[in-house]
């Protein structure tokens, strides 16, 4: 006899996020909000928010380990600026230039990841403080590199400009324009990268020992130590991964909007935290799932798009909607989890009573 296990807290919260996303998207399609009837809208959400999806994964990984990283937005702005300057100035006007820029982006992310991870794990400084410092540092460095916006154009680096314009066309999800031409759905490279990051992060957290160790230290650090897990190294690596992903997110951002600017990805760390939480990652650690975070990011993106497409096209409406959504989710999560604990406690009590008799 095989019985189904009840969902774990992680699975339950992820499921809630997915259901909400599907429901919200369905409402937008039926309502109808302009544009949502096309598949392209879904892909546009992916294209526009690829970097957000990547840093949501970065945030989820450290949050599952019981930490936080608010430097991701700053690292993106620094990477975008550094890569823009590099591409504009380099003599590598070919594919190697792009690879070099990618390595520069990853290098910056890695440097922040290693530095912050070291301070947090081995010197045991509060992650909030360390990454707050990282946020200021990276924003400051961005401005130091250039106060003016730096644009990568077809003139300054033709190969990169052409490369970033590549789109994957999916004809059968396209639509027929008014003149009768078939317009295929288009997915940017960055969106594909973001999806790959989600899948790889999921596999990492599910099937690789490091990933499970991250859950363990987030669940109970003391226990994890007693179970023989190298807590410091695990925590360190979680920040290294999140740093690397921030660098990658910076490069993806550059491919989407090839302009370095001090205000790039402003506040995106907060969006990423919100996405993770909506996706079912608990700030207390040990619970969460990058698939949930992906849907969390998409929920945020969708609600902003819906408001953008409606007549309420003002930034405060978007902020208020995001805020209300976040509040609603947290309430929902805590109600669901506490109800569940109550039921469990009751069941264990009655089980014990049966055993005693």
């Amino acid at each position, binding site marked *: 006899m095989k019985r189904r*296990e*009840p969902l*774990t*807290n*992680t699975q339950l919260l992820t499921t809630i996020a997915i259901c909400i996303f599907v429901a919200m998207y369905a409402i937008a399609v039926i309502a109808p909000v302009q544009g949502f009837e096309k598949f392209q809208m879904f892909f546009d959400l992916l294209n526009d928010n690829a970097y957000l999806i990547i840093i949501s994964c970065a945030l989820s990984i450290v949050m599952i380990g019981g930490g936080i990283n608010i430097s991701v937005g700053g690292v993106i702005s620094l990477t975008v600026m550094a890569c823009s300057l590099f591409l504009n100035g380099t003599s590598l006007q070919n594919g190697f230039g792009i690879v070099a820029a990618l390595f520069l982006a990853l290098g910056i992310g890695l440097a922040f990841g290693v530095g912050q991870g070291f301070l947090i794990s081995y010197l045991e400084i509060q992650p909030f403080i360390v990454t707050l410092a990282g946020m200021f540092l990276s924003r400051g460095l961005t401005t130091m590199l250039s106060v003016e916006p730096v644009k990568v154009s077809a003139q300054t680096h033709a190969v990169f400009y052409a490369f970033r314009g590549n789109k994957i066309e999916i004809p059968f999800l396209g639509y027929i324009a008014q003149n009768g031409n078939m317009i295929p759905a288009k997915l940017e490279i960055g969106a594909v990268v973001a999806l790959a990051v989600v899948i790889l992060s999921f596999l990492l957290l*599910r*099937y*690789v*020992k*490091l*990933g*499970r*160790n991250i*859950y*363990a230290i*987030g*669940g*109970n650090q*003391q*226990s*994890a*130590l*007693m*179970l*023989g*897990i*190298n807590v410091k190294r695990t925590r360190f690596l979680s920040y290294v991964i999140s740093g690397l992903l921030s660098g990658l997110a910076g490069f993806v951002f550059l491919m989407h909007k090839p302009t370095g600017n001090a205000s790039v990805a402003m506040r995106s760390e907060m969006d990423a935290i919100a996405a993770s939480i909506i996706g079912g990652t608990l700030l207390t650690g*040990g*619970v969460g799932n990058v698939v949930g975070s992906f849907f969390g990011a998409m929920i945020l993106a969708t609600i902003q798009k819906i408001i953008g497409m409606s007549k309420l096209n003002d930034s405060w409406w978007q902020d208020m909607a995001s805020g209300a959504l976040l509040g609603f989710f947290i309430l929902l999560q805590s109600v669901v989890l506490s109800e569940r604990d109550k039921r*469990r406690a009751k069941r*264990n009590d009655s*089980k*014990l009573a049966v*055993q*005693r008799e």
Partner: protein
Amino acid sequence: MQNDAVLTMRGIDKQFPGTKALNKVDFTLRKGEIHALMGENGAGKSTLIKVLTGVHEKDGGSIWVEGVEGEAHIHSPQEAQNLGIATVYQEITLCPNLTVAENMFIGRTEGQMVHWKDFEKRTTEILNNLGIPARAKQELSSCSLAVQQMVAIARAVDMNCKVLILDEPTSSLDDKEVEMLFSLMRDLKSRGVGIIFVTHFLEQVYEVSDRITVLRNGELVGEYAIEDLPQVELVAKMMGKDLNDLADLEQIGEKRSAATEVVYEAEQISSSESKPFDFKIHKGEVNGFTGLLGSGRSESVRAIFGADRVTGGKVKMKGKDTKISKPHDAMKAGIGYLPEDRKRDGIIADLSVRENIILALQVMKGFFHPMTKAQMEAFADEYIKTLNIKTASQDTPVGSLSGGNQQKVILARWLLTHPDYLILDEPTRGIDVGTKLEIQKLVLKLATEENMSITFISSEIEEMLRTCSRLIVMRDRNIVGELTGDQLTQAQVMKTIAGGEQ
């Protein structure tokens, strides 16, 4: 060194700031034996175990483990695991957010990948083998505490450990589960595993152990074969004093049920947590509320003190009508209450011993009438001396004192207000035998010498029989009997608690 020893520790030293936790302690564990490690709280059992498992590093001494060349150096729990030393702690040291299977295997597998199928299959086998009622895929937090404890043991067992340390493993298990654990321990023993068993329950030691090592104040008292050390002697060795002290108490225990003046009288008093009941106590009387845990003992005294929301009833203090609806009223009326959960309701861990002692008196006086520093110091000194509180100074934070001494600090707090009626709810729980005795003596002294009325609640019936002249027995939140004089025997109390008399 014996040939059959799996673990030998010699001359272990461990220093903590301010205290010498271990002083030249020797310990030897043989193959296939259950070895009880005994001592009062603070004797150094936990420290010794933490040194062995790499949580603390030793300051001196040597450790040898069978099968390892030369001295073993243990710097982390992981290294201890690798040497075949596994530990199951009193508090659950598993991760509640992972599944049972993961908790069994995390931190001890080769390679970088997690093989779920394999883990789950092996876990199911182990759980079935040991008869543990859990499923491999279940999230650990959905198991009861007892099952979580067993999963921890199953993990240790599966690690083919040579040395298995069980630190208070039975404290959260019921009788049936304890029996299961013991049969598991005997099974492991027959497979040649050496087991170190740490527990507070003396009977359990005699049920399973082969050998006992006793520690006191961080020093080794001795190692004994179980048949050479009767239970009474074990207690004496742990306490480091003669058992005459116990007899002594019986003598002091000249209990009075004198029909003197009634100090406190309640009629149909009830609170949000307790049903209405009548109660009175005479001057200089020691009485007790007894009953099983959850029978309403604590709730009743909380109602008297106004600690829960009082919902009805009439109260008279020394014959005068008094209204008690909150603790402050009770304090003003001359009632003191030492709560059951001293960590939650009583001690303010970060404040100093002096501040904790002064607290209740200060509240009574009102915060606008501060005491002078000299006064406070004098009060604190007086009670540290009378109650024999072991503290470095008045300024030591209470949190750093041992449980027994914390309890004495709270006691001092109430004694300072010179209450007419003092309620002590489980004042002896979780503290060592010696301090328990001191507190019992003190209770009787207060009653006889200062004519204080005292209500004493304890889970240990012997303790109540020794101190109380009248026992109120509760069952299912109702008072079901009142025992005095000749009725005060263990058998009679049990009978009354169990109900259905005759």
